[in-house]
C-alpha cells in the first residue's frame, strides 16, 4: 500500500469499508470451547438423571467433570487468543460475560452445597426441623435435611444467560434459537421433578452449546480448507 497516494473522497470511503470488511472476515472461531462445554454439561446432567432413573450410585460426583472441563476450556481459550491476531471489541465483552458466568456457576454450586447445611444449623438453633409427612399415612414421618427446591432450574436459567448474549451480540442464530428454547425449557423445568430437570439440563447443554459449537466447527473447517486451497 502506497502511503503518499492522493485519495479521492470515494476512494477514502472505499478504503475504510474494505478494511472494516477485512477485519470481519479475519476472525475465526473454532467452536472447540462450545463443543467441550456442551458435551461435559450434557454428560454430567445425563449421568445424574440416569443414576436417579436406574437407581445406581455414581463413583464420583458428575459435576466434578464440569470443574475438570474448566482446565481445557482455559487452555483452548488461550490457544484461540494466540491464533487470532486481532481482538474485536465484542469478543472482549463476550469474554467478560463468560468469565462472570463461570464465576456465577461456581458461586451457585457453593450456594447449593452450603445453604441447606447452614439452614439446618439455624433451624436446630431455633429448635425445629423439617419432617417428611405422607398425607395418606402410607409411610412413617421421617426427618429430612433442608433442600433448595428445583435447584437445577436455576442452573438452566444461568446456562441460557451467556448463550443469549453471545448469540445476540454475534448475530449467531443457532445460539439465539438455543437460548430461546432453553428459556422455554427453564419454565418447563419449574413444573418437573429434579430427576427430569436433569434431563432438561442435558437437552439445554446440547442446544445451547453442542449444536452451535458443531456448526461453528464446520464453518471454521470450511474456512480453513478454502484458505489453504
Amino acid at each position, binding site marked *: *500500500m*502506497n*502511503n*503518499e*497516494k492522493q*485519495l479521492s*473522497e*470515494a476512494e*477514502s*470511503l472505499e*478504503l*475504510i469499508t474494505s*478494511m*472494516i470488511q*477485512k*477485519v*470481519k472476515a*479475519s476472525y475465526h472461531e473454532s467452536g472447540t470451547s462450545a463443543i467441550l462445554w456442551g458435551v461435559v454439561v450434557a454428560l454430567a446432567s445425563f449421568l445424574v438423571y440416569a443414576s436417579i432413573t436406574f437407581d445406581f450410585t455414581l463413583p464420583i460426583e458428575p459435576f466434578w467433570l464440569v470443574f475438570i472441563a474448566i482446565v481445557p476450556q482455559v487452555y483452548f481459550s488461550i490457544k484461540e487468543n*494466540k491464533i487470532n*491476531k*486481532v*481482538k*474485536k*471489541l465484542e*469478543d*472482549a465483552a463476550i469474554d467478560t460475560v463468560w468469565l462472570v458466568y463461570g464465576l456465577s456457576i461456581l458461586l451457585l454450586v457453593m450456594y447449593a452445597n452450603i445453604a441447606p447445611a447452614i439452614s439446618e444449623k439455624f433451624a436446630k438453633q431455633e429448635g425445629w426441623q423439617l419432617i417428611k409427612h405422607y398425607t395418606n399415612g402410607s409411610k412413617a414421618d421421617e426427618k429430612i435435611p433442608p433442600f433448595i427446591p428445583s435447584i437445577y432450574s436455576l442452573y438452566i436459567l444461568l446456562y441460557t444467560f451467556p448463550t443469549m448474549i453471545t448469540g445476540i451480540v454475534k448475530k449467531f442464530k443457532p445460539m439465539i434459537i438455543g437460548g430461546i428454547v432453553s428459556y422455554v425449557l427453564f419454565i418447563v423445568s419449574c413444573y418437573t421433578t429434579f430427576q427430569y430437570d436433569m434431563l432438561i439440563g442435558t437437552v439445554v447443554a446440547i442446544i445451547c452449546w453442542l449444536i452451535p459449537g458443531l456448526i461453528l466447527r464446520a464453518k471454521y473447517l470450511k474456512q480453513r480448507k478454502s484458505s489453504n486451497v
Partner: protein
Amino acid sequence: MFKDLDPILHSQLRLAVISLLIGVKEAEFTFIKEKTNSTAGNLSVQIQKLKDAGYIEVEKQFKDNYPLTTCSITKQGIEAFEKYVKALQGYLHTNKK
C-alpha cells in the same frame, strides 16, 4: 479540495490502519501489515506518526521469545476518525448536488 480533512488520516496507509483499528480492541502489527499489504518499514513509520498524533497506542512485548507489537485506537483517534468520515460524507453530499 480536501483542506478540512485531517492530514494525519488523509493518507492511504494511515487511513487503512485507523479503519482496521476502529472496530477492534487491539490488533497485532503482523495482522495490520498483512491486511494493509504494506512493508514493515513503511508501516512502522506510519504507526509512529499515528502514535505521535495520539490516535493510537502501541504496546511492545514478547511472545514465545519473539517481539510482539500490538496497536489499539485511542479515544482521540476515534473522535478524529468520526470527524474525518463526517467530512468525507459532507464532500460527497456536496458533489452530488
